[in-house]
């Protein structure tokens, strides 16, 4: 029964789309005959028609759900045909009539809901004004990247990628059961294996960027965001509006497969997500009368401004605030390689503060070596330890500076795996922990543990050669052995004393306020 329903709805959808396309073709043919492009009015009208058809399709679905009667296939077909007749007349109805229809439907919904409410318990008075949508089950959509063990979600992703002509990257190796809902890829099987070599579907800069992400050549959330925006600039420069399309809509559609491709190469970071949202918003705000050259120039300058404001100037501001917190004779502990923390320390050294640094590092990435190199090159006195020695050296530390990958809406700090451990031990020793983070990394997600949403890196990175032998070489053959290479973890706000952002020095729990203020501004 359910299948019949589905197929009938599918047929309905197809006919509706078919109608829409037929109508559009007639218009385009007419316009061509008249010898000019579709005017703005016509384009708007076409768009309205498409929307109308989509809405009708949704209404039908809603109605059939409310009736709760499984339609036999013949009835469904009849309904679909009547719908066909209706839709072809739809453009003729005026706005007022449509509004009246909609109101009548809402009344009917409310009446139905009222009846249900009486039979059940008394709903609180405040809820009686709730919109009829509440009756329909609210589907909370989980992001795709945490549903890898659900075959339906995987199939949906595969279909979406197929539509966008992006190849699917295959999973690699045995996944530890707690994290089997996350993707795990191998660096030796890059996505470029499956795309044609002079890549035609994906812009060459994006292919190069994806490769650099997956091989770790561009790592660190600031570097990834800047590289992403740089690649978008190239894409915009090379973009040509196809005829009968508007730049503001078509360019956004062009960017979607690129973003899927980059996501396949390496899951997007929160900072990249915010940057993409900004770029998409800017593109949609291009007025339609704008010429292509001007529009492109405007977009390029917007992206330049974003980088200047949110990344470069933010770093300067943050380091100005942070320098107040660094006093002479301090011993500062840093973890891994955070571009922002390195910048702060170099600036403080330039301003003649006397301090020394302890760099804590962890396997398998060993990013601390790079931080150590940059600080020592500047002239700062450094000590280098591995994370297993953290509780040993903490009594000597006066402050801990940590970088962040993202700041979540409930005040948790998402950062390189190992950060929460350092924050915990620092709290135990009563050492102040300061997190430095630009506001563009603030993210609306909420997370309280590191399991739900994380990133699994290549498990082969854990293999190490000692005296010419690699002991874990055949780890795949051992059934009970799983290698886990986590990338991120979340630190609760209790362990963080201060967050230094470009808006000032705020406590961890003020992050939602900042997010709210940002949304108001935009």
């Amino acid at each position, binding site marked *: 029964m359910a299948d019949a329903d589905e197929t009938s709805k599918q047929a309905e959808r197809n006919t509706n789309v078919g109608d829409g396309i037929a109508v559009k073709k007639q218009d385009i043919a007419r316009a061509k005959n008249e010898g000019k492009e579709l005017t703005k009015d016509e384009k708007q009208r076409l768009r309205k028609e498409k929307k109308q058809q989509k809405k009708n399709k949704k209404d039908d679905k809603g109605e059939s759900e409310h009736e709760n009667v499984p339609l036999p296939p013949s009835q469904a077909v009849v309904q679909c045909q009547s719908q066909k007749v209706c839709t072809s007349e739809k453009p003729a109805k005026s706005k007022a009539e449509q509004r009246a229809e909609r109101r009548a439907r809402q009344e009917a919904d409310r009446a139905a809901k009222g009846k249900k409410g009486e039979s059940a318990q008394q709903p609180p008075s405040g809820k009686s004004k709730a919109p009829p949508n509440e009756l329909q089950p609210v589907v909370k959509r989980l992001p795709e990247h945490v549903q890898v063990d659900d075959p339906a979600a995987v199939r949906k992703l595969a279909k979406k990628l197929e539509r966008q002509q992006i190849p699917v990257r295959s999973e690699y190796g045995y996944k530890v059961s707690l994290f089997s809902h996350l993707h795990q890829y191998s660096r030796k099987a890059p996505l470029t294996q499956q*795309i044609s070599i002079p890549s035609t579907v994906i812009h060459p800069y994006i292919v190069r960027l994806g490769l650099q992400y997956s091989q770790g050549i561009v*790592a660190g959330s600031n570097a990834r965001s800047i590289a992403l925006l*740089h690649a978008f600039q190239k894409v915009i420069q090379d973009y040509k509006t196809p005829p009968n399309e508007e730049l503001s809509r078509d360019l956004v559609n062009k960017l979607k497969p690129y973003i899927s491709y980059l996501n396949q190469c390496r899951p997007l970071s929160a900072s990249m997500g915010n940057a993409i949202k900004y770029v998409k918003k800017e593109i949609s705000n291009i007025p339609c009368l704008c010429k292509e050259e001007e529009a492109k120039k405007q977009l390029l300058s917007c992206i330049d401004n974003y980088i200047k404001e949110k990344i470069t100037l933010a770093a300067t501001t943050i380091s100005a605030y942070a320098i107040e917190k660094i006093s002479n004779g301090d011993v500062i502990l840093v973890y891994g390689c955070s571009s922002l923390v390195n910048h702060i320390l170099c600036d403080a050294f330039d301003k003649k503060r006397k301090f020394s640094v302890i760099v804590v590092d962890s396997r398998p990435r060993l990013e601390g*070596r790079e931080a150590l190199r940059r600080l020592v090159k500047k002239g700062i006195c450094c000590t280098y330890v591995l994370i297993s020695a953290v509780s040993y050296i903490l009594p000597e530390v006066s402050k801990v500076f940590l970088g962040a990958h993202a700041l979540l809406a409930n005040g948790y700090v998402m950062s390189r795996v190992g950060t929460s451990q350092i924050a915990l031990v620092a709290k135990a020793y009563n050492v102040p922990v300061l997190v430095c983070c630009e506001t563009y990394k603030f993210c609306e997600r909420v997370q309280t543990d590191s399991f739900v949403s994380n990133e699994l890196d290549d498990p082969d990175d854990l293999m190490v050669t000692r005296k010419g032998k690699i002991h874990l070489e055949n780890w795949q053959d051992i059934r009970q052995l799983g290698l886990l290479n986590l990338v991120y973890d979340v630190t609760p706000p209790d362990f963080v004393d201060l967050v230094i952002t470009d808006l000032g020095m705020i406590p961890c729990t003020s992050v939602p306020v900042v997010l709210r203020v940002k949304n108001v501004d935009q």
Partner: protein
Amino acid sequence: MELQAVLMAAGGGSRMMELTYNTHKPLLPVGNKPLIWYPLNLLERVGFEEVIIITTKDVQKMLTPDRLKLDGKMKLDVVCIQLEGEMGTADALRHVQQKIKTDVLVLSCDLITDVALHEVVDLFRAHNASMAMLMSKLHEFTETVPGQKGKKKAGEQRDFVGVDATGQRLLFMANEADLEDGLTIRKSIMCKHPSMRIRTGLLDAHLYCLKRCVVDFLVENKNISSIRGELIPYLVRKQFSKSVNLPNNKDEVEMSQKMEGQTNLGSCKDEELLRLTQERSCWNDHHGDMSEAYHGGKVRCYVHIMEDGVCYRVNTLAAYIEANRMAPKLIEDPPIHPSAVISECTQVGADSIIGASCQISDKTSIKRSTVGASSTVREKVKITNSILMNGVTVEEGCNIQGSVICSNAVIGRNADIKYCLVGSSQRIEPDGECLTVTQNAVSV
């Protein structure tokens, strides 16, 4: 567009004149397909839609799609050059310079390989390299080559290739001929890359990805005539040269400017953002010293070394024979062409290839051999380890072993041919016995 492919098919095949004096090298049959089919097939499989082929007028006439038996719709853009002046590969590239608008992939028509091309191109893309090339482990040729008594002459010049610890960055490249006083490696290179492996058993596949600015540089410097001989060693040396800071003359300045920067048109903004990205990225290609990624060098050369897989350059007779052995593995077509007429009492081995419209008569035995199109083989013939090109006629009772018979030759009856090379359109008298090679067959 990302990459353009340029196929060099104007070479004369100077090291196998016995085969090429009559047939041009790109059209030599290997596994019953012209030699040029193999690189074109590689490009097509990987997804190229257009190829620029540089060749001579005679070869151009033969390069029609049906002759080449290409399945796909790859567009071939054939450019002719005259062979009067000695045109090197770099000169040829300069000749087509107007057509080149992006980075370029140069290959040679005599390359037969099944490499995963994305390995080479990924190195080129990911590290923003100036040059990426393909090399392969040299396979020893085991077949006896007609005309060479004993082992291969040891005078073959070896290539010395120095790669860094990862095996991908190319640090040093020189031919034995240039190293009379011994191998010298500059101290600056050793400081930057303390661990270097020098390999000699490598075959250069002549497949290069070159940046657009390198092509522009070639245009400026007309004294470079060979890509392999001059340009590549120059690029490898240039990675470490200090002349970037102290140009000696105006040419050096222009060269260094062209090599370093991205294109000069467009933005210095480009450079700025790339620099910002590299500054903030916590990645370095080496550890242990104080320099940034790539030691701050702008010119980078990478190499992908194939450890296993098929990779041959058909530029000598031995390579030609070996390639014919390997050809069945690379071609998906059935080894025995459907239009060949083979009678029942013949034995055709599984690793033999029979061409189109062949006629094989009774009681013949064909083992590990290639028989070209439109050949006729009469009764009681034994063919082992041999290559017969197109249109060959073999009369009854012959015994052919380890030989190469060029096109349209006729082998008289009861001839006994061992390890010989029979030239094109030659005739072997009946009952002849050949044991050595000559250009024109000698009957005994």
